[in-house]
């Protein structure tokens, strides 16, 4: 063999031609589209009464909703950090956390989000912000203490996937009608409780009756959407780290840790529950799947095992 070998052609006989292990899941995609269609119907049902009042009223209601939604999206990161008692940390303070996030950013081709740490002892993590340009990831002290660096990378990969997929935006949009409906129902209940305002409450009773099913349907659909997005973020996060096993191990630890966490900690995480890597609701017993923002641990583990198997099979 000549010592000065000519440059090898770049794609000379790949040794193992393999199927990429991260094909999009068509079943999940179909279900998600169906759920989004339902969200759209909820929106239409919300706007319809205003349009019945007149085109101007309808357009005004739509405009108000858009402005409110935009404001929610813009300030969601600050609000979430404040609620979970998180504070931003620099690379000097938390070099390991920053290094993990930076590597995930390179893998995901995302700009680096801000990194925050919360002093809560309950192990959890969340991402907030409307999109990759303005995002923040936050981990709690409890999470850092319990997880190995590899498991931490798995969790942060899941959060980076949420950022890449703009899940916070999607979730806010989906939850918006039911949130508005809830606000109205609370307002109406307040009216009904006081004798002086009771006549107004009676007058508004038909509206409240119409809003109630809207609230319930909106809640159920937005929760269903949230569960699908969690499953997607698990898979995409694994695409960044290549270690579905590490994420599954981390999820198991987080679930145990959250069950043992102090009620005050779980209450602090409750406002950001939908953004968290695992459910943060303060009750020990799990409500039925339909009313959960996150899929069950078993379901998530099963999916991660599937990715593991594909990787083991040769990609």
């Amino acid at each position, binding site marked *: 063999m000549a010592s000065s070998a000519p440059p090898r052609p770049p794609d000379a006989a790949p040794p*193992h031609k*393999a199927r990429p292990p991260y094909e999009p899941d068509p079943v999940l995609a179909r279900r*998600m589209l169906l759920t989004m269609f339902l969200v759209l119907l909820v929106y239409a049902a919300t706007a319809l009464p205003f349009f019945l009042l007149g085109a101007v009223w309808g357009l005004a209601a739509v405009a108000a909703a858009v402005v409110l939604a935009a404001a929610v999206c813009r300030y969601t990161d600050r609000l979430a950090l404040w609620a979970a008692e998180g504070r931003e940390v620099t690379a000097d303070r938390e070099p390991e956390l920053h290094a993990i996030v*930076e*590597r995930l950013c390179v893998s995901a081709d995302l700009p*680096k989000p801000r990194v925050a740490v919360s002093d809560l002892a309950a192990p959890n993590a969340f991402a907030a912000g409307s999109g990759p340009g303005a995002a923040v990831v936050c981990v709690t002290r409890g999470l850092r203490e319990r997880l190995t660096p590899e498991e931490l990378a798995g969790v942060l990969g899941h959060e980076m996937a949420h950022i*890449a997929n703009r899940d916070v935006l999607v979730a806010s949009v989906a939850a918006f009608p039911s949130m508005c409906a809830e606000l109205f129902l609370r307002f109406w209940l307040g009216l009904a409780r006081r004798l002086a305002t009771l006549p107004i409450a009676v007058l508004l009773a038909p509206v409240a009756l119409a809003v109630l099913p809207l609230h319930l349907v909106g809640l159920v659909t937005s929760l269903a959407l949230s569960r699908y997005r969690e499953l997607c973020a698990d898979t995409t996060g694994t695409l960044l780290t290549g*270690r579905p096993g590490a994420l599954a191990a981390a999820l198991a630890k987080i679930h145990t840790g959250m069950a043992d966490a102090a009620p005050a900690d779980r209450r602090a995480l409750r406002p950001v529950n939908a953004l968290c890597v695992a459910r943060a609701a303060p009750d020990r017993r799990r409500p039925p799947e339909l009313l959960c923002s996150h899929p069950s641990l078993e379901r998530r583990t099963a999916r991660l095992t599937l990715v593991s198997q594909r990787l083991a099979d040769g990609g």
Partner: protein
Amino acid sequence: MGFLDTLLGRSKPVKPDLDRLFALPTAAVTLEAAAGFTPTGLGSVCFRAPEGGAFARLQRDVQELLDADEGPAVEFSTDDYGYTWLLARHAPEDLPGLVTDLHAVNATLEAGGFGPHLLCSLVGFQGPDGRRLALVYLYKRGTFYPFAPLPGDRRDNALELEVRGAVGADLPFEDDLGRWFPVWGAPGL
């Protein structure tokens, strides 16, 4: 990422352009003329080895591929964060050979379906005063940026910007300074 992908919550890996690596020898000539930095003959590829046996097989193939042409063997190492670095050594004047090796590693991993796990490749340079410098190629973005470490985990930002001024025209440079991620202690630096 397309609208539908955003809607469905899935990310597609970008299609990278590995041939951009071949612009490095030209840039090295410019860099030496402008700032006196010469290649060290060391270069490395960083990737995340996923779990499972398939990747171990692929890793062996890469090693055999590079060891085949009587050059010095490549070295594998794992860093603190579980990423694998593959270090290739060539004579300092044989930058084209080094770049060809780095290209081959990237192409082999990519062909094996492990493109999503490739992070970056880098080529080391040394200044007349002993200062170290790396030109880092971001696989996902197809862009280059300089990384110049100083003792005590600090970066020589002035030198990095000077390097961009010198070779910015020869290489597709990373415009977003926020993505000039540090690669502390990378093999080949």
